[in-house]
């Protein structure tokens, strides 16, 4: 017998009688102000929410806060003029010196400040982690309250890879002292577009 056959046979012999799945697996969350909840939670997890009316405002913000920064890439045609790095490369290792990546997010979750991105937003899977700083543009109309709502709207296997990103990378592995910026991006700015 192969390992597979052995394992499956042992499981079949040992598993208990079938128990049904529960009926209640979705719960409603009501926030008085979804956008505020998202922004507050994002701050709690070390990120920053910036409310903007249009791409011009994003442009202005980046020019101000990242003045002089090189190694900028974006997937957003509206902000292409800010980029000095072309993402149309074959080897993701070449992204190693990226300082700022600006991408868009498909959907945002208020309860935990998570933003879903998949291969439709990521020309390279490693893009949001390898960059030193990350900015995500999210339309407020894509805000949902909780994860049940998120999974309701998403098809997670629409592409081969997708991820929820909540705040910048972090660790508290050294004596529980929180350090923002572990192996992924050191900072996350989310532009909440009208």
């Amino acid at each position, binding site marked *: 017998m192969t390992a597979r056959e052995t394992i499956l046979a042992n499981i079949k012999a040992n598993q208990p009688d079938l*128990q049904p799945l529960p009926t209640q697996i979705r719960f409603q969350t009501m926030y008085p102000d979804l956008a505020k909840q998202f922004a507050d939670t994002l701050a709690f997890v070390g990120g920053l929410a910036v409310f903007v009316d249009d791409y011009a405002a994003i442009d202005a913000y980046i020019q101000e806060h990242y003045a002089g920064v090189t190694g900028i890439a974006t997937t957003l045609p509206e902000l292409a003029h800010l980029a000095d790095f072309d993402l149309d490369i074959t080897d993701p290792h070449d992204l190693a010196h990226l300082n700022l990546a600006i991408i868009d997010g498909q959907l945002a979750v208020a309860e935990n400040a998570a933003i879903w991105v998949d291969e439709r937003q990521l020309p390279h899977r490693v893009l949001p982690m390898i960059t030193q700083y990350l900015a995500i543009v999210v339309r407020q109309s894509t805000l949902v309250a909780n994860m049940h709502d998120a999974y309701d709207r998403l098809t*997670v296997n629409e592409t081969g890879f997708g991820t929820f990103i909540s705040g910048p990378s972090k660790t508290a592995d050294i004596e529980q002292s929180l350090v923002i910026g572990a192996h992924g991006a050191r900072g996350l700015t989310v532009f909440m577009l009208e």
Partner: protein
Amino acid sequence: MNQLALDHPDASTVFNKDEARVDWHDETLWFVRTKRDRAVQQIPEWEQLREAASQIKNHVLSNLHDLLIDFEARAIANGITVHWATDAAEHNALIHRIITEAGATQLVKSKSMLTEECHLNEYLTQNGIDVIDSDLGERIVQMRGEPPSHIVLPAIHLKKSDVGDTFHKHLGTEKGATDPQYLTEAARQHLRETFLSRKVALTGVNFAIAETGGFVVCTNEGNADMGVHLADVHIASMGFEKIIPRTEHLGVFLRLLARSATGQPITTFSSHFHKPQPGKQIHLVIVDNGRSRQLGRPDFRNSLKCIRCAACLNTCPVYRRSGGHSYHSAIAGPIGSILAPNLDMRQNADLPFASTLCGSCSNVCPVKIDIHEQLYKWRQVLMQEGYGPTAKTVAMRTMATVLESPRLYRLAGRVGRGTLRFAPVLAENSLNPWYQQREMPAPPAQSFRDWYINQPKP
């Protein structure tokens, strides 16, 4: 990394020699428990979420066979190569083979308690593969040649000065430097090199989705993603109990996991893998290693519901005051104590007794494992299987004989009180473990019964 030398009581005695350090360890972990409390109090439906998760996992355990077959078929259709390993040895050999077939001699690994359980690092190192753990806590203990002491916070037993010393030795950071920001930056630079240069990366699996043939890996550091997206080969090690039926179930589990573990609303990254990158490979290794045996134990199978959040470790007053290494097992704390005896009863007979059965663990468990009840039941199994010391069995038989007989019980009580009253030195000495740090109770001349029978009856 052999700490099988000391059982839990002896290891804990050593741990408790440095009381200030125990206080620090206890307070640090209690702090994590309070962060958990603050996070869960914000979710009014928290207890219902736990119930939903518990029932989903109960269903999973009862339907594992078909779920795994469905999962495998869809994973394969997605382009994932699926392997099966009956035990640790097969798991380790498989992973070694995948690495060498990829033409690599190096591996970068993100956190996987399964690989700790299988002693993968040791095996690979002995077979000429250089392994680097990319989770910061894991990297620290790896440099020190120690196992992790906690499922989620591998280096929680170390102070920043310990980390500073280790990094000075291994990374060349400044001697005496302890600032966590500085030390983390040093690790970031060092590990970035690792991510950029290694062609094979290994991760664990937090959840595998039967419905879609994909799996989810959760990290705060982004290390799993950095490793696999820059590698040619992604190996994912999975205990077979990690399967869940549908994507929508992730809504329940991802709301519970990070809040239970650290008090965060979700981990920074919750990465869903379905297909390998074009031209690259994903190998998924489904592992048994005693899980199917545990599945066959009606009293203990619920331990397989565990999602490895470590909430039970953080709340356990014994774990906080004895440290993970005292459990001489890949997984420490309350959940470790009900999983480990299944792997080796003789080795782990002490673990279910490393508890007062206070029940706090069962209350924080997001999937409602009846941990403290299983601890009690393991005690019965282990003693009946003969893993108790002979002296204990004899003492227990004597106790039973005395306590079930009203006459002998009263006699023993009189003798006990008499001893304490007239020859206290027989109890108040260093052979009496109670007396190490506690005074004996004051011995009254009369028991309650003595007093009661002398009362005038109405």
